[in-house]
């Protein structure tokens, strides 16, 4: 953790501002703060909460997740692959005539088709969730803040990335302070 107590102006020029981090004490105050940033036109900001806060997606002006469509495609693939596998193995490559039934008989394929639909969908749901979230990512500037570790306990944080087109050290800090933040700090990362 490359954190020290010196004010940002006295740091070596080897580091540059990464983000501004504001800390709040309740879900209500962070929802209001997020609404304020959204209305001020910020886009590259995020909130960090110990649990998903109700109504935060709307407060941050986020679009719906496309995850459902990805999972649907994967599930359909799983179902089709299962059918293809059973048709090819039992009906084409080495037909097994059991109980006088055709090599491939759709009714007896249903259970395996169902199971593979579920398996493919579940794996896709998790892998696509990781992909959309860009996880695992063990390194992120927000972890430079020592206060930040209480996000997983009972504190609520709002971070504004320096890459945001509207980011301005003084103005953004003033805006965050006007949202009744309990604490605002600048997090820097090495150049």
């Amino acid at each position, binding site marked *: 953790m490359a954190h020290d107590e010196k004010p940002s102006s006295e740091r070596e020029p080897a580091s540059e501002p990464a983000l501004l981090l504001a800390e709040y004490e309740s879900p209500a105050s962070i929802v209001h703060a997020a609404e304020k940033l959204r209305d001020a036109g910020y886009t590259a900001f995020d909130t*960090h909460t*110990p649990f998903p806060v109700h109504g*935060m997606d709307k407060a941050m002006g986020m679009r719906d997740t496309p*995850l459902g469509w990805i999972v649907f495609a994967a599930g359909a693939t799983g179902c089709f692959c299962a059918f293809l596998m059973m048709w090819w193995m039992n009906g084409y490559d*080495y037909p097994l005539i059991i109980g006088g039934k055709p090599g491939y008989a759709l009714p007896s394929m249903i*259970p395996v088709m169902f199971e593979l639909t579920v398996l493919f969908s579940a794996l896709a749901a998790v892998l696509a969730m990781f992909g959309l*979230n860009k996880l695992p990512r063990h390194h992120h500037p927000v972890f430079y803040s020592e206060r930040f570790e209480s996000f997983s*306990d*009972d504190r609520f944080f709002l971070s504004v990335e320096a890459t945001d087109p509207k980011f301005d050290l003084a103005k953004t800090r003033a805006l965050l302070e006007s949202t009744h933040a309990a604490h605002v700090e600048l997090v820097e990362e090495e150049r």
Partner: protein
Amino acid sequence: MSYYAPNAAIGETHLLDPKLSFHDITEQVSRVSEDKAPRGWWILFMVALTALGIFGGSVSWLLWEGPGVWGNNQPVAWAWDITNFVWWIGIGHAGTLISAILFLFRQKWRTSINRFAEAMTIFAVMCAGIFPGLHTGRPWFDYYMFPLPNQMTLWPNFKSPLIWDIFAVSTYFTVSAIFWYVGLIPDLATLRDRSKVGPGRFGKVRKLVYGFFALGWRGSNRHWQHYERAYLILAALSTPLVLSVHSVVSFDFATSVMPGWHTTIFPPYFVAGAVFSGFALVETLMIITRVVFKMEAIITMKHLELMNKIMLATGSLVGYAYSMEFFIAWYSGNEFERFVFINRATGPYWWAYWAMVSCNVISPQLFWFKRLRTSIPVMFVITIFINIGMWFERFVIIVTSLHRDFLPSSWGYFSPTIWDIGLFIGSLGLFSTCFLLFLRWLPMIAISEVKGTLAQADPHHGAHESEHDGAPASEPAPAHG
């Protein structure tokens, strides 16, 4: 999962003490892996390790000598091994019911018990898988069961329910495991953030290991959005999955032409029994754990009582299925079917049948009385009875149907050998060892989910009071009457 707003008009109260703060929840759950293990844990762990040793011995002797060391023989070719398989896999079902089905029904009380129950599912399915694997006789050829190219150029027969079972159980295990892990990620981040780097207490190792598996979770709302949707989808997928798994297990029996097995009631009957036995085992484990680790504030009497109600419902379903089986055996007019059922109740295995009925049908009926379903000693004894009864149910279905073949010259009687018993006790040891390690090293309660259900998780919590302070005239007075 969003906050829980109790409806006072119908007598609902807060799930947990409203004085509990977010930090209290973090503290109570995380402390288990940070403090020294309580003495009770060590005692249980030593017992579990002993049983695990029995498991090792029983498996080694079985592999060395072959399945002849078991009591199975014609006509009873399936006995304790398959009984144990069905029993264990059934136990797993409660975990998925709590984590997925109760999630879809928005039963917020599940948050205190779901992590615990999901862990039970995973370890129970592991134990279940061992039995059919060993029962093949030559487990090193178990890969024949999977659609893998082999030297015989043969493929599995996909018309066999045993192959459906392979797919159902392995999918079930995989999906349960990833569902569990996804739920764990935010809580692993909590443990990571609490690990203080420094000497003693392995702070650095903890930070590294929990940090690695937490994947760099930073509670971002842009992550929570995808995360919550993935969780919802996994719950929606697990719901039909769990119903399918025990249905497919029941097809192993129902698609055969054995009297006593060849019935259409099997799939729903097996699923109800699975949920019934699983809840019983979750509760048995929970009653012990909440005392050993002092979790009474999070796993309250309300949770236990609700679980007892589910056991009462599923136990009654099972009792109905038993009587319906008898009715249909009589109504079918099939002599063999009638014989099997009368033989179950009065034949050489009458003791197993009546043990099953008294444990599964009679004992849960005591939960109709509020005093009994809120008494810890009573529910502890009943859950143990249910576990025993559900084991006997599978034993009765399997062994009594097989031991009287169609020809009286092929009749037999099955008795277990010491290796049957050893492997069963051993599987309990394997389960308990895994479970105790889980309790000790992973958050046994879903920290972030419990926090999300507290009243102060509501972004409008306390807003009404402050609005009244600021502008009392702006809101109309509530209408009385």
